């Protein structure tokens, strides 16, 4: 019987096994940000403990960083959190891509971009979207602050072996259907907690054809299905992405690493606890209309009706969601009016995402009722986009072009959607209050967000795509 990549990574990282205990796993890379780390560093100080491996730790600030004017931080509490991270990194000798660094950005964008993220690694961060790094064939998952402290002190974690779930994504994608649509489609069909207790491995021809950016979008939202980690066996696409990245192995060491990484891919006859199969042909541009990511439909569909709910709990959830969202049962998705558009977040803020959105926006104008923001995922993404003139396309259309950070994905800084207003957002969560108290979020792909910005309501982005793109 062969092994899956999940089993292979697990076995490679076993430090200690003992009856009646979880396994003690070694952690190769620990990413740190300003919001979930201060209490962990305080804990180290209280017990007079050190960071065991500062060289396997990397910090940045992203969650509450301003994206307009970085020289002025009016929020004193947020500022204190940022200066606390600076002090902690200095005192414990942890490398930091701070507010002035050209490497600063959303932690899940810069890890891969800098080549810190590599196949076969165990990667953790005090953030649930750490699953993003699984796109490289690493076992990457979010942890709480107590475990941040544990990893800082010991470079290990106690873990019970998870169940494995393979999602086979078959068939050819229709033109104009993005990776974001595929993961939203999975959530819409399998629900909000189908992955609880599992690590997901995504496989199949549609995955093989995806770029690394697209794979990251898929793995990023594994947690929205309840799975702490989602990963993809590495292949040539993975290796060529990593070549020449800042912290990736170089020259001969890179070739040796690739040989090792190649061996990680799941064996043909590997067994899984559960297997799901998705037909990509059935996927259309998706739009969330409710208050969790599984409350999502195809763009040309309508919001479900109360009478169609299978259980009393479903009915109550739908009622609550419709009240919060200010929408009617049976309402057409394309009739939802939009006042804000956010293109950004660890799900969809990479160069490719911005390029795709810019293709829709080019030569058009943002609807007068809409405030539209582009927040690149990192300073590097921002710089590259500016080299390509993408910033100008957005600015000429009436978009605001911002500095990198998490921004309106969770609105910890001042990028907030006002109560009662609707936002087409390329982020990952549409929970009540996520983008601001009373804010109404619609999760979409970058092209769908761009199309909504132009029309002032949800619209099938394929209608705005150049004929040769759609066919």
């Amino acid at each position, binding site marked *: 019987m062969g092994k899956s990549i999940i089993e292979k990574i697990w076995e490679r990282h076993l*430090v*200690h096994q003992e009856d*009646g*205990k*979880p396994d*003690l796993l*070694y952690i190769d890379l620990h990413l740190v940000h300003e*919001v*979930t780390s201060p*209490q962990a560093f*305080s804990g180290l100080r209280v*017990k007079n*403990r050190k960071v*065991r*491996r500062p060289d396997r730790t990397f910090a940045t600030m992203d*969650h*509450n960083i301003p994206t307009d004017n970085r020289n002025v931080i009016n*929020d004193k*509490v*947020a500022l*204190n*959190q940022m200066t*606390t991270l600076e002090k902690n990194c200095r005192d414990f000798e942890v490398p930091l891509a701070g507010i002035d660094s050209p490497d600063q950005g959303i932690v899940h964008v810069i890890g891969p971009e800098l080549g810190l993220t590599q196949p076969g690694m165990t990667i953790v961060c*005090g*953030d*649930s979207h750490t699953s993003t790094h699984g796109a490289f064939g690493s076992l990457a998952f*979010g*942890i*709480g*602050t*107590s*475990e941040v*402290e*544990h990893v800082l*002190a*010991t*470079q*290990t974690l*106690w873990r*019970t072996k998870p169940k494995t779930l393979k999602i086979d994504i078959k068939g050819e994608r229709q033109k104009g259907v993005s990776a974001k649509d595929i993961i939203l489609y999975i959530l819409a069909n399998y629900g*909000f*907690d189908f992955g*609880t*207790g599992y690590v997901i491995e995504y496989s199949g021809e549609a995955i093989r054809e995806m770029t690394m950016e697209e794979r990251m979008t898929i793995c990023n939202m594994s*947690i929205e299905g*309840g799975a*702490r980690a989602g990963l993809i066996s590495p292949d040539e696409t993975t290796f060529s992405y990593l070549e020449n990245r800042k912290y990736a192995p170089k020259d001969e060491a890179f070739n040796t690493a690739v040989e090792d990484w190649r061996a990680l891919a799941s064996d043909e006859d590997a067994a899984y606890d559960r297997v799901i199969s998705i037909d990509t042909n059935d996927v259309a541009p998706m739009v969330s209309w409710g208050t*969790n990511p599984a409350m999502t439909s195809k763009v040309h569909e309508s919001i479900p009706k109360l009478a169609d709910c299978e259980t009393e*709990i479903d009915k109550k*959830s739908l009622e609550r969601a419709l009240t919060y969202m200010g929408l009617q049962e049976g309402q057409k998705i394309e009739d939802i009016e939009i006042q804000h558009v956010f293109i950004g977040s660890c799900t969809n803020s990479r160069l490719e995402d911005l390029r795709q959105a810019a293709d829709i926006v080019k030569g058009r104008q943002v609807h007068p009722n809409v405030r539209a923001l582009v927040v690149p995922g990192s300073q590097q993404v921002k710089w590259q986009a500016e080299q390509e003139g993408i910033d100008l396309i957005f600015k000429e259309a009436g978009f605001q072009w911002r500095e990198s950070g998490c921004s309106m994905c*969770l*609105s*910890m800084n001042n990028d907030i959607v006002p*109560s009662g207003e609707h936002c087409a957002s390329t982020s990952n*969560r549409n*929970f*009540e*209050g*996520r983008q601001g*108290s009373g804010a109404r979020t619609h999760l979409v792909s970058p092209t769908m967000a761009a199309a909504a910005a132009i029309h002032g309501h949800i619209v099938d982005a394929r209608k705005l795509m150049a004929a040769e793109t759609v066919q």
Partner: protein
Amino acid sequence: MSGFKTLMAKAIAFDRANVDTDQIIPKQFLKRIEKTGFGKFLFNDWRYQADGNLNPDFELNKEENQQAAILIANENFGCGSSREHAPWALMDYGFKVIIAPTFADIFHQNCLKNGLLPIALPKDQVRYLLDSAKVQPYQLTIDLAEEKVTDNKGFSTEFTIDQYWKSMLVNGWDEIEITMQLDDKITEYEYAIR
């Protein structure tokens, strides 16, 4: 963390599914650098009205639901963000036990690390508890050593908990201290992967 053995306390119904950590503790309160003082922000957006007054319809604000230490909720409790501020807020408010049919993974782990006991019970049993707790006063006894939940109306059930976590909770051990006793093993591993 102090040890957890038995608890007899008021249990209240929170009959909602998919309660996410953004609701448990909204992001505007995550900027603090302490672990304490989050209780007053627990369920902030549901608990308070726009004018800052308490929302009288919210479960936790009802007079009969005050001073509870056990929260009974529906499935997938604690989904979403990994913020440990969620268990910190629940504990600071006064909760010591959460009962639900299922919990999100990260939240579940964060609870255990802080001595907040998450108990998963079958749906029909949670339904019974939710319905019972809608009529206050309602008390439950949680016996961690025996792994039992009982009420004073004759209901009694066993729950399961990972034995490693049970011993951590009962003894109130510091996990980092335990791991550090394996320092030689970690060093050996690091030497091997150099």
